């Protein structure tokens, strides 16, 4: 059957035949077709199965509101579930399969559900499947889960790429139908920056699907002329295939532009682009959506929206049937009869619920006024309908129109609530629109062409004027006002058969009535209990019907019954598009230190520290596991000298006449009296008295300090300091700027560090212990005049320095240091050895400064000065932060020296069970100390300082360990700290 239902006319390109596959059947269509129109043209009726009862489903509409015709598009990793055939552009080689059936589409095994439907009424699952208890996860749920869901993901990474962007405009016009085009022309001619977005690949909206004329030319032609003019103006950005899916605060709109979905292959370009549009004003011209009528078996393939039926005929030259019947409650439905007849399609009947004079109808059509359709026949496609009077009429397509709902969705995305209009029997936009938004055309209830054109034209004029753009001549497009009377009619009472409201989720009139009967009467309860409107179409064709039936049950009017809120997105948006480029390695940026390339060449292993990559250790030939490398590096630092890149530490330049006073306020310990040329360890508290961060700060001059922060907290601390500077003490002369990126900084640690540095620093600089003692700092020159900074500070407990040079020399500096160190057996060490050395010395780091511990807990209580106003000092004195049985940071050594300690173990007094009540603290950091020859740990335990020598259990239920550990001083190595002063 090759395009058996193709007819004359239309806006397709018959010169371009495209072949495609539906369920492996090869079919032909034309350029300009959607998958749906091509299926219609080929007489394909059955395209899918419903969610719950697996009823046969056919194409229902011709737009993004489609509830039924969902297919899986493309193959393999490109497989895309739940794609609406009605918006999928046809391309050559398109491959689609139907969804949600077991076995072939025609003979779906799960169609059995339909026979059990009496037992599967709304919410039945809340009332059963409870016994026996264990069966839920094991039996009931797996069965439910496997039969639920619609399409399938490939389970493999999405192979397409996505991009994002930002657009700015004076006027955003949403929808390029008659109202949108009229508005765009007027706004653009006034000189405003205009963005015109439309979800269709062919702008024009219903001008393309109707037979009206504008300015005495065919509507579709007028539309293309308007588009041509707009495209030629450089103050206009025309976005086709672009859905504005959400309205956000302050005129920001989210839009999804499809770039390659209509192509066989993306050619390595982004599939879709997610635009964030900043607009000063927005005009919503989203049109309206036709709704159905509920009657017996109204869900059969071939039963479609009347407007869609003629859309297929007029725009795509494809007729859904050869013998079409129309069932309507409004004038618009009749146009389907006349339009199809004009294409030579037989019209078997027009049934109108209204008892009035019939409108002009094709000859041969049976006319029934004040009548209804009560039932239909035809398993995989409609064959006949039965009227209220029992009369049966044959047809292979039933075009239904229950009236039109303005597309108010975006007006509700913030606070807007639609208002009811009786004359339209529909909701129109209410007050409280998103700031800057106005609504025109069918979306605003102007359901006739000339009214839509006029509203668009007028509103654009006043918007442009309001934005201060010049008034320019711009004529109002002329058109006729077609008949559009409607009389509310929701569902056919006489029908005994099930009457569908939500076609995808299988919600029937009975379900809504049951929901009411059981007390789920608020609209939100109705929606949640029956799943009405929760399907992929968000109830675009269903919600009104459900609301109307509920109103009938409660005996209240529809507006009294309420309206369901429309939430973003207007139509579903791929998660990939919302993520854009941020995936894989590009999820977040990578920061590299200046010695990175050198370290790579040394074969270093790297570790993520926030966004930084840091060398973790430097394996040497023959070393088979990381511990060998780390032990060697740590020992070498203690015995000779090691070099470690500490560039990642945050560095903040603090300058000003009041810099010292400022530091005195933000550090818990004193800084006012720090001498020039000296460095001091500083502890920062949060205002709540908990330790926030630590580091060393050096005084380079009376008015200049260089502060270091931990790598992890650099950004947050800078923000906090700016808060102190701008909001708390704006009267101080102090200035901050980050210098983290400016300096490459290396720790040179070990007994031989001074000897090594002597070969680096310039001759005139005396770094002898006398001239440059522990905690000294200075601005010096190295390697023949290169400016540098030298700090005599030590994290390892050895004689140690940190030397900094401008980053441009970072790569050269690490090489120079290593070369100069050769004769001293210098080695490079990574973050692991750094950790071992600091744990051996009992220095707190991230695991100890975890945001839950006080200075007292850390054993630095005495540092907190009570004699000055310091961030955090007051609240650090609260009783529960100074309890007798408070935590203390101490060291732990395994009683059995061969035991490995584990961070995260909890401490329990010997003999006690490992329970919350007996919990006395936890192990924060552990390491194997190559110097001591056993595993060591730091941790917090209650009254730790009073319990030196006590043996407690380190309970690690997770890893099935319960280790006896001795409480010892955290200073495992060189407790007197003699080595760093030599």
């Amino acid at each position, binding site marked *: 059957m090759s395009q058996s239902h193709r007819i004359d006319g239309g806006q397709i390109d018959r010169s371009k035949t495209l072949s495609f596959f539906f369920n492996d059947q090869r079919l032909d269509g034309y350029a300009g077709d959607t998958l749906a129109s091509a299926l219609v043209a080929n007489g394909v009726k059955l395209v899918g199965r419903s969610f719950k009862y697996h009823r046969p489903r056919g194409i229902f509409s011709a737009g993004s509101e489609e509830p039924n015709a969902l297919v899986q598009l493309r193959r393999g990793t490109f497989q895309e579930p739940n794609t609406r055939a009605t918006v999928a552009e046809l391309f050559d080689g398109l491959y689609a399969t139907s969804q949600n059936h077991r076995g072939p589409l025609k003979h779906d095994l799960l169609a059995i559900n339909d026979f059990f439907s009496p037992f599967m009424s709304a919410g039945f699952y809340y009332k059963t499947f409870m016994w026996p208890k264990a069966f839920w996860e094991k039996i009931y749920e797996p069965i439910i889960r496997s039969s639920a869901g619609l399409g399938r993901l490939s389970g493999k990474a999405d192979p397409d790429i996505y991009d*994002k962007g930002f657009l700015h405009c004076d006027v955003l016009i949403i929808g390029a139908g008659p109202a949108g085009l009229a508005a765009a022309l007027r706004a653009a001619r006034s000189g405003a920056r205009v963005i015109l977005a439309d979800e269709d690949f062919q702008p024009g909206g219903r001008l393309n699907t109707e037979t009206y004329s504008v300015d005495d030319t065919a509507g579709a032609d007028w539309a293309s002329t308007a588009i041509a003019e707009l495209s030629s103006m450089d103050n206009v950005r025309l976005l086709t295939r672009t859905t504005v899916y959400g309205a956000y605060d302050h005129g920001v709109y989210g839009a999804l532009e499809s770039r390659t979905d209509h192509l066989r292959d993306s050619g390595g370009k982004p599939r879709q682009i997610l635009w964030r549009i900043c607009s000063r004003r927005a005009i919503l011209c989203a049109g309206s959506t036709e709704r159905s009528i509920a009657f017996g078996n109204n869900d059969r393939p071939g039963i479609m929206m009347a407007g869609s039926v003629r859309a297929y005929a007029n725009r795509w030259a494809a007729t859904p049937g050869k013998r079409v019947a129309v069932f309507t409650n409004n004038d618009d439905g009749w146009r389907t009869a006349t339009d199809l007849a004009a294409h030579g399609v037989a019209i078997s009947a027009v049934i109108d619920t209204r008892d009035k004079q019939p409108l002009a109808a094709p000859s041969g059509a049976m006319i029934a006024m004040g009548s209804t359709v009560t039932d239909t026949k035809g398993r995989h496609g409609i064959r006949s309908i039965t009227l209220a009077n029992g009369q049966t009429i044959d047809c292979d397509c039933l075009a239904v129109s229950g009236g039109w709902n303005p597309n108010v969705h975006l007006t509700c995305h913030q606070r807007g609530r639609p208002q009811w209009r009786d004359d339209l029997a529909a909701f129109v936009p209410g007050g409280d629109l998103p700031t800057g938004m106005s609504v025109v055309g069918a979306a605003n209830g102007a359901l006739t062409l000339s009214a839509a054109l006029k509203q668009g034209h007028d509103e654009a004029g006043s918007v442009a004027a309001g934005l201060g753009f010049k008034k320019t001549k711009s004529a109002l497009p002329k058109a006729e006002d077609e008949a559009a009377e409607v009389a509310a009619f929701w569902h056919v009472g006489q029908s005994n058969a099930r009457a569908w409201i939500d076609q995808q989720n299988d919600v029937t009139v009975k379900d809504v009535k049951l929901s009411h009967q059981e007390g789920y009467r608020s609209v939100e309860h109705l929606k949640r209990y029956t799943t009405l409107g929760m399907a992929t179409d968000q109830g675009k064709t269903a919600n009104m019907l459900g609301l109307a039936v509920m109103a009938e049950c409660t005996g209240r009017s529809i507006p009294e019954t309420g309206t369901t809120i429309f939430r973003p997105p207007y139509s579903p948006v791929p998660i990939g598009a919302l993520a854009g480029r941020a995936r894989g390695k590009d999820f977040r940026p990578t920061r*590299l230190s200046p010695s990175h390339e050198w370290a790579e060449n040394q074969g270093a292993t790297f570790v993520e520290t926030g966004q930084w990559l840091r060398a973790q250790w430097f394996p040497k030939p023959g070393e088979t596991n990381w511990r060998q490398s780390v032990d060697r590096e740590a020992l070498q630092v203690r015995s000779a000298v090691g070099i470690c890149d500490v560039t990642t530490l945050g560095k903040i330049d603090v300058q*000003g006449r009041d810099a010292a006073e400022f530091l005195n306020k933000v550090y818990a310990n004193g800084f006012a009296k720090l001498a020039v040329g000296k460095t001091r360890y500083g502890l920062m508290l949060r205002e709540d008295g908990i330790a926030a961060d630590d580091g060393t700060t050096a005084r380079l001059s009376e008015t200049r300090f260089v502060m270091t922060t931990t790598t992890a907290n650099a950004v947050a601390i800078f923000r906090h300091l700016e808060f102190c500077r701008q909001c708390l003490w704006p*009267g101080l*002369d102090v200035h901050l700027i980050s210098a983290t*990126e400016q300096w490459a900084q290396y720790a040179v640690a070990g007994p031989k560090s001074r000897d090594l540095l002597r070969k680096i620093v310039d001759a005139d600089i005396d770094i002898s212990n006398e001239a440059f003692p522990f905690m000294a700092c200075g601005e010096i020159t190295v*390697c023949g005049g290169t400016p540098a900074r030298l700090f005599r500070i030590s994290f390892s407990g050895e004689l140690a320095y940190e030397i900094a040079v401008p*980053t441009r020399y970072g790569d050269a500096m690490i090489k120079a240091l290593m070369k100069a160190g050769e004769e001293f057996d210098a080695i490079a060490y990574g973050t692991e050895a750094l950790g071992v050395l600091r744990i051996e010395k009992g220095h707190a780091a991230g695991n100890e400064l975890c945001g839950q511990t006080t200075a007292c807990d850390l054993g630095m209580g005495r540092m907190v000065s009570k004699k000055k106003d310091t961030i955090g000092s007051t609240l650090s004195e609260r009783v529960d932060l100074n309890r007798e049985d408070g935590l203390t940071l101490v060291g732990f050594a395994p009683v059995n020296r061969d035991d490995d300690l584990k961070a995260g173990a909890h401490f329990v007094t010997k003999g006690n069970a490992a329970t919350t009540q007996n919990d006395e603290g936890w192990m924060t950091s552990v390491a194997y100390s190559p110097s001591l020859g056993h595993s060591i740990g730091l941790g917090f335990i209650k009254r730790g300082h009073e319990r030196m020598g006590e043996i407690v259990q380190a309970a690690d239920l997770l890893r099935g360990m319960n280790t006896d550990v001795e409480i010892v001083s955290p200073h495992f190595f060189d407790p007197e700290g003699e080595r760093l002063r030599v």
Partner: protein
Amino acid sequence: MSDATLKARSPLDGYRQQFGTLEIVELNGLALVSVATPLDGEEELKKAMTTAHKAELPAVGSSTQSSVDDTRFLGLQPGQMFAMFAHDGDRAVEFVAKKLGETGYYTDQSDSWVILQLSGADVRTALERICAIDLQDSAFPVGAVTRTVMEHLGTIIMRTGHDTFVLLSARSSAKSFLHAVLTSVNNIQ
């Protein structure tokens, strides 16, 4: 005393590439020095700038150009600007101090940034994929400068010509930043 002298490296080792009409160049040999205005010291700083550079103190969000030398002043935040000028050494602060004396607090930023210059007719089309700032003439004229964020990276953007923009981003993430820019260029071509 070391025999080795230290060789400087630029963040991207001097990247330069042409993509159709669009050119991307890493700018080197530029010094960047932040100048902070002492509390209540704005008038003196203004005077010093006029005498030494014949330049205005830039407002936040814009830049001024010395009429006697090549120094451009970038108004980045209240009480702080960047002085940008050709200089290939590591003594940038001394140059500024020589001219402005003690009227400001100086911090060398020359090594803190990677500097990319994008030029060509498509430059705005490429940038709209990563830059939330409205770059059209009325909103961001030639001379405008501001700090913003692109692909999670803090970025200073300055418009130096009708179709020319200079972007500064943190040196440590220079490769990620270049990647972000190149991706935009690829995606629009």
